[in-house]
């Protein structure tokens, strides 16, 4: 069996503040296979965003291991984590998080500015990514605030793809879209999955979660596994 792309074991995340300690994640263990489409669901405050931040190397766990394509990212320092984010992870955010001062093409090229790729190569890669999400060529020079919500999310997906990442992490990607546009975005994810991309998607919407190969739900910082037939198992399943 192929090595998991994501393999996290015994992850705990505890936040310290003046008010005391907040134990947000408890002994999280799960893995994602290459090419799998996994949805993480849970109510507000369940810890899913914290888990997403750890998966995306924006945060480090208090304890436990996190192997991303075999690399133990839990032990990396800040600059190393930045490099992992630039080369192995693609983010898609709920509110798109595109830079309004920049054109569509410049937004998609942005992750590559933090690699050694020369500019002409970056432009080529950005154009390929935009073609993959089906954005018309005449939109490439537009400012992102001139686009519709669906188009902006497609640009955001192209930006997530441009560095050919190991995983795409999508945080409520359809949250700010109408149902029709949201459907289009999910179809884009399916197309990417068909090309072999590994996708981890956070959503509170059960209909969106049902699009995934596998659902994991998180409640009170603990993980529960469900497959698409509705069978629930606790932490440790899904491999």
């Amino acid at each position, binding site marked *: 069996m192929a090595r998991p792309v994501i393999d996290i074991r015994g992850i705990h995340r505890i936040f310290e503040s003046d008010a005391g300690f907040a134990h947000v994640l408890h002994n999280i263990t799960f893995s994602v296979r290459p090419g799998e489409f996994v949805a993480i669901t849970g109510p507000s405050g369940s810890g899913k965003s914290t888990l997403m931040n750890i998966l995306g190397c*924006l945060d480090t766990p208090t304890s436990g291991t996190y192997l991303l394509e075999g690399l133990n990212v839990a032990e990396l320092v*800040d600059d190393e984590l930045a490099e992992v984010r630039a080369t192995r992870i693609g983010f898609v955010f709920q509110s798109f998080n595109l830079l309004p*001062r*920049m054109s569509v093409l410049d937004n998609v090229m942005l992750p590559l*500015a933090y690699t050694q790729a020369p500019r002409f190569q970056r432009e080529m890669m950005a154009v390929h990514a935009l073609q993959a999400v089906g954005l018309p060529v005449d939109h490439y020079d537009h400012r992102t605030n001139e686009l519709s919500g669906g188009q902006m999310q497609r640009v955001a997906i192209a930006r997530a793809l441009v560095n050919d990442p190991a995983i795409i992490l999508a945080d409520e990607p359809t949250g700010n879209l109408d149902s029709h546009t949201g459907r289009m975005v999910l179809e884009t994810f399916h197309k990417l999955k068909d090309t072999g991309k590994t996708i981890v998607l956070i959503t509170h919407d059960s209909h969106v979660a049902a699009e995934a190969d596998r659902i994991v739900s998180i409640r009170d910082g603990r993980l529960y596994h469900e497959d698409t037939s509705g069978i629930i198992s606790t932490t440790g399943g899904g491999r």
Partner: protein
Amino acid sequence: MNARDLLREAVRALEANKGRSLLTILGIVIGIASVIAMTSLIGGVRNNLVSGLGLNAARLVYISAASTMNQDTVDDLKAVMPSYEAIEGTAMSYTQKKVNDKDISISITGASNQYYEMTGQLKLVEGRLFSQQEESADARVCIIERNGIKMLFGDPQASVVGRTVELDGRDYLIVGVSESQYPSEDYMQAYFPMGTVLNDFNQGDEYLSQVIGLVREGEDVDAVMSETITKLATIMGYSEDEAQDMIYCYSMKSSIDSLNSFMMSFQLIMGAVAGISLLVGGIGIMNMMLTNVTERIREIGIRRALGATRRDITAQFLTESAALCVTGGIIGTIAGFAIAWGLATVASSMDLTSSMGTSGVITPLISPQTILLAVGLSIGIGLVFGYYPARRAAKLDPVECLRYQ
């Protein structure tokens, strides 16, 4: 991020807030303009003095006496004053010449080549100085000023070296042309060997109009002047009491020292203005960059999520700060030169340096060093005052930034 990308991002950021950027850099503009105006104006004044007075100006001593001096007096003084590198006399006269019904006034100066070289009075543009043979033979040769060409020959572009000019019924061979000290339509200067003037224009009178000494480098000019009075009094037969009344020495040094002192005061004042402006400007830059950081917290989070390191964020904001200051520096440099030109024009019209024997026209000095100073200062201010906001931006937690509304 590479340098080109950083610059591109910086320009994009400045363009997004043109009005605010312009207001912020005002302090930098004023500070740099002050520095440029001061250095280029002072450089221009110094150049004016050096070109007008010659490099030796501070070491020249003008010697005059109640009774007249001749070449023997000069030779006797040379023998007892080793502190002088050279002592030369000059004989002056005056004549008029009618050319095409127009009267031309000609000031006649007779002196040795050494006199002309040590005073820098004669700036050759064509031809040569007198030969030793011509000096010894009191030859009828001369050097005329450039403005005299048109007056004497009708065509200002005429080539006159090798031609003759008739003065007081005598023909003089023109061997050289010099810059015009005081350009005029009906007045010119002509230079001759000393003996030629004494014989032809002063009716054989041996007496010198002026004696000038060049003090050796390292000697105290004031002490040499004092000694000159004493020694010359002895040579001319004056008593100690009479010496101070009968013999007078003057040096440009005191005037130059006064001017230097004035320029230093001017420099201090302008430097204070520049320093305060740059400090205020720098604080304004820091304030604007801190505001930028706050406004772009979410952008910082996005960039960090996409792979920017803390160093990338620091470099980005530092580049923006430096670009802002360099823009201010460029505007300030242009404004500074304009101010210098304006002040130079006013000073020239007031003829401030003519009392020191130079032409009143002052040209501000525009040198690569001055421009480099402006650019260097601008970049330095941008980096110093932009560092704190840049580090603040870099230390922000990306998760918190992405949550920021």
